[in-house]
């Protein structure tokens, strides 16, 4: 369809083509609505597909491979030193992204979702302009905002000049001999692992007293041990104080944060990766004109039906608040589409799983022990260590464990945590258990295939009945 300066009238306009946006657009079209999708970028998929989840997981699969090859020596298989062809790695990663984003184009076409490329700016509660190669004036009955988020810099450091954002790092421009990762959240850890596996000397600085502050500390422990080997250094309770460019690279000085006595020594790094957080991409969208309110952090204020303060406008995904996760955005996008279609939908998920694709992987959902403690809520926690799992041992992965957080009276599953390989997949059972209101016995009485890591969920549940078979 050719766009000119002709005004365009549509039932539903979705702004943003990431997971929240395309899920909303496709679902709305499936519900019989006439949909226009505004994508600021040529390719659909947003941060997740273009410079987030998908490229990072593609690179992490290589890191896994390298790690497995090295580990294999202890199991009796020795490989030679790996040779890296950066160009081919980039090419391979690019193909994975192309394939998925091309798939989205087809899915949009199949549903007759009209795609308009350009930057949207609202002119009122029923009107927006798209500035792209062509100027399009869109009038709509409903708009679904799915504008996402972007990495924030950490003054005095700005992106550029050797200071990377996660998006830059995922381009894999080079393998710097030394890399400072600022931020011990999942982005910093995942990318730190990628670069360390590919040969960089990685140093990580985190302000809190441990890595992954949002996760329970027991889940993080095996990863913390692994990073001691994998990384050059991990500085906790440390913040960046200053940075200057020198011949050898970027000279960074640190300050103490929290209870640390002495700041880490200054260091010089070829590159610095800033992974200290993301902020909603809600500026310069004309949201004021549309009557859409933002909170003090710039997130769009929404209710459970994903309605903003403007009657005609809904919002989903990162732009609406934590956790900034694609799967949450997808679900919210579907809810928003249904609400627009007049269905009584609402976002009432009880578990939004979080996965960190490090080695070992970490995943959790629902209530964490830390949250329970903060709320002063009594819980019963049962753990199944993987040393007792036949499958884990046969894979040479005995360090992981699976835990369930239960209501002490009803033994209802309130949360789950896993660390170890395949945690990404195992956590889904915890999410299902929570959504279904399952109790420990439901999990304990469900036959899980043997020998698999999934059994560890069953065995953890059996601990709650004080009768686990393998401990």
């Amino acid at each position, binding site marked *: 369809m050719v766009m000119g300066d002709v005004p365009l009238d549509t039932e539903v306009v979705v702004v943003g083509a990431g997971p929240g946006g395309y899920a909303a657009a496709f679902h709305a079209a499936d519900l019989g609505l006439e949909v226009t999708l505004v994508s600021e970028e040529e390719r659909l998929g947003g941060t997740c597909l273009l410079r987030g989840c998908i490229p990072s997981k593609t690179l992490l699969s290589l890191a896994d491979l390298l790690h497995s090859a090295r580990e294999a020596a202890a199991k009796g298989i020795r490989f030679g030193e790996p040779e890296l062809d950066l160009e081919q790695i980039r090419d391979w990663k690019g193909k994975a992204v192309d394939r998925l984003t091309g798939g989205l184009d087809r899915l949009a076409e199949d549903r007759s979702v009209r795609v308009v490329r350009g930057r949207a700016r609202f002119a009122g509660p029923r009107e927006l302009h798209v500035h792209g190669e062509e100027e399009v004036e869109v009038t709509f009955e409903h708009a679904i905002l799915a504008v996402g988020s972007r990495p924030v810099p950490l003054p005095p450091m700005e992106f550029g000049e050797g200071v990377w954002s996660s998006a830059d790092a995922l381009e894999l421009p080079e393998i710097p001999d030394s890399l400072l990762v600022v931020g011990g959240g999942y982005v910093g850890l995942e990318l730190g692992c990628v670069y360390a596996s590919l040969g960089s000397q990685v140093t990580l600085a985190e302000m809190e007293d441990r890595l992954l502050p949002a996760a329970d500390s027991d889940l993080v422990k095996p990863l913390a041990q692994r990073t001691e080997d994998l990384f050059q250094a991990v500085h906790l309770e440390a913040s960046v104080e200053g940075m200057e460019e020198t011949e050898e690279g970027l000279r960074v000085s640190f300050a103490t944060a929290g209870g640390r006595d002495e700041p880490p020594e200054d260091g010089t790094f070829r590159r610095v990766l800033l992974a200290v957080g993301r902020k909603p991409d809600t500026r310069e969208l004309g949201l004021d004109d549309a009557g859409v309110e933002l909170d003090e952090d710039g997130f769009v204020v929404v209710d459970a039906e994903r309605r903003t303060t403007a009657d005609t406008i809904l919002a989903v995904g990162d732009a609406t608040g934590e956790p900034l996760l694609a799967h949450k955005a997808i679900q919210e996008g579907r809810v928003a589409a249904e609400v627009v279609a007049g269905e*009584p*939908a*609402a976002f*009432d*998920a*009880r578990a939004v799983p979080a996965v960190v694709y490090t080695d070992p992987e970490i995943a959790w959902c629902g209530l964490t022990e830390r949250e329970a403690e903060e709320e002063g809520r009594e819980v019963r926690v049962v753990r199944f260590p993987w040393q007792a799992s036949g499958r884990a041992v046969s894979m040479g992965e005995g360090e992981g464990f699976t835990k369930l957080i239960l*209501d002490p*009276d*009803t*033994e*209802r599953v309130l949360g789950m945590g896993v660390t170890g390989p395949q945690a990404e997949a195992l956590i889904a059972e915890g999410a299902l258990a929570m*959504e*279904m*209101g399952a*109790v420990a*016995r*439901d999990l304990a009485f469900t036959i899980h295939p043997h020998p698999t890591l999934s059994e560890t969920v069953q065995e953890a549940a059996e601990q709650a*009945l*004080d*009768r686990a078979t393998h401990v």
Partner: protein
Amino acid sequence: MAKEFRLQDPGEGVHEAEIVEIDVAAGDQVEDGDVVFVVETDKAAVEIPAPFTGTVEEVRVEEDELVEVGDVLLTYTEEKAGGKEGEQPTGGEEGAEAEGPEEREGEEERGEDEEEAREEEEEEGEEEERKAGRAAAVPDDTPVPASPATRRLARELDVDLRQVPGSGPEGRVTSADVRDFAQEGPAEAEEAEEEAAVRKEEEGEREGAPEETRAREETGEEAPALPFRTLVKKPPTLPDFSRWGPVRREPLRRIRRSVARRMTMAWWEVPHVTHQEVADITKLERFRKEHEGAVEEGGGQLTLTVLVLKAAVASLKEHPRFNASLDVDAEELVLKDYYNLGLAVDTPEGLVVPVIRDVDGKSLAELSREIPRLVSRVREGEATQEDLQGGTFTLTNPGPLGGTSFTPIVRHPEVAILGMAAARMEPVMVGDLVEWEIEARLRLPLVLAFDHRVNDGADAARFMNTVVETLNDIDSLLLKI
């Protein structure tokens, strides 16, 4: 230990209710499911069954008292049942049921060798028992155990999950529970009513109470709740009709009772006047016949009612004081800028008035599709509270059954109702005194009953003229809709 029985939300987010009837007194033996109170919310009269089997210790409320959700209605001592069958040959079984048969059966089925698990389960069972004593199963700060599909269903049926007792394993609320809860209100009340009536009769016979006393008690109980500011508090005692011949008694069913209450209230509250006129619908009927086929193809029924609804809205727009309510306390008229018209529907249980929303904004074709669907839902007893609320004016059409005229009663707090009698072919004189002829015309007698506090006879005549002119002239109807 005396336990407290509190008022739960009878549904639909009601916060307070008026005690209309108290069916128990201190010391009374009550069985689970017995109706102990009748309360009236702003939406309906609701019977409150006891969720326990036991003895009433103290009734904490009085008739006509306004109570809020959470207020203690009465205190009672619970009869311990379950596991002790035999002690109470009549009450035992029902008692056990109240305490959750699933938990108990679960215990008995479980092997004796799992002592620990069993103990835990017993604790849990007791927990469930405690919760079953209240209608709401789940405290406010924890999520109701229900699957995403069930939660969605609850939203679709407008059911508050917290109010639904879970029958699923481990107290989970199932989709079936939600469906039952959405429908059960009436069903349960009806059953309880029937049981109560039967029991009362049996008791009467057993105790040989004089017929007259029973009659007084019963009529006292069944009397409609009269509105405030009326002179008559209680209708006079009925004579003993059986002195003159055999009599049979049947309880007033839910809808009948509701009609009785509402009509009594409207009759007392509203000074009624009726205004009558006849519309010539010859052209209109030709129009209807011409288009009914096309409408039928679109899945609708283009009835005379649909056309009159539209004409009524056209007139309401010109005469907004008929689309209003009277706020007696504020001494203000509430004028409504929306047109939700009630349509009186004759059902086997009695009169039900579903509301068609935004009649002004809907086309004849849309109304022709919507109305038959709504009516059949009502006749099948599937109407929701939502279907019955929010009306601004009512149309009643007993015409198809016959009748030349009648005087409908205004549905308070509306201020007018339009009635259609039977349309008939009639000879009509046209022309003037000198030149005239007789034509066969189809004529529809209409009657408007209105609240004289809000409108006068002249207003009614003007309102009716607009209706009649609109119906007489199909072109003007089409222009107005």
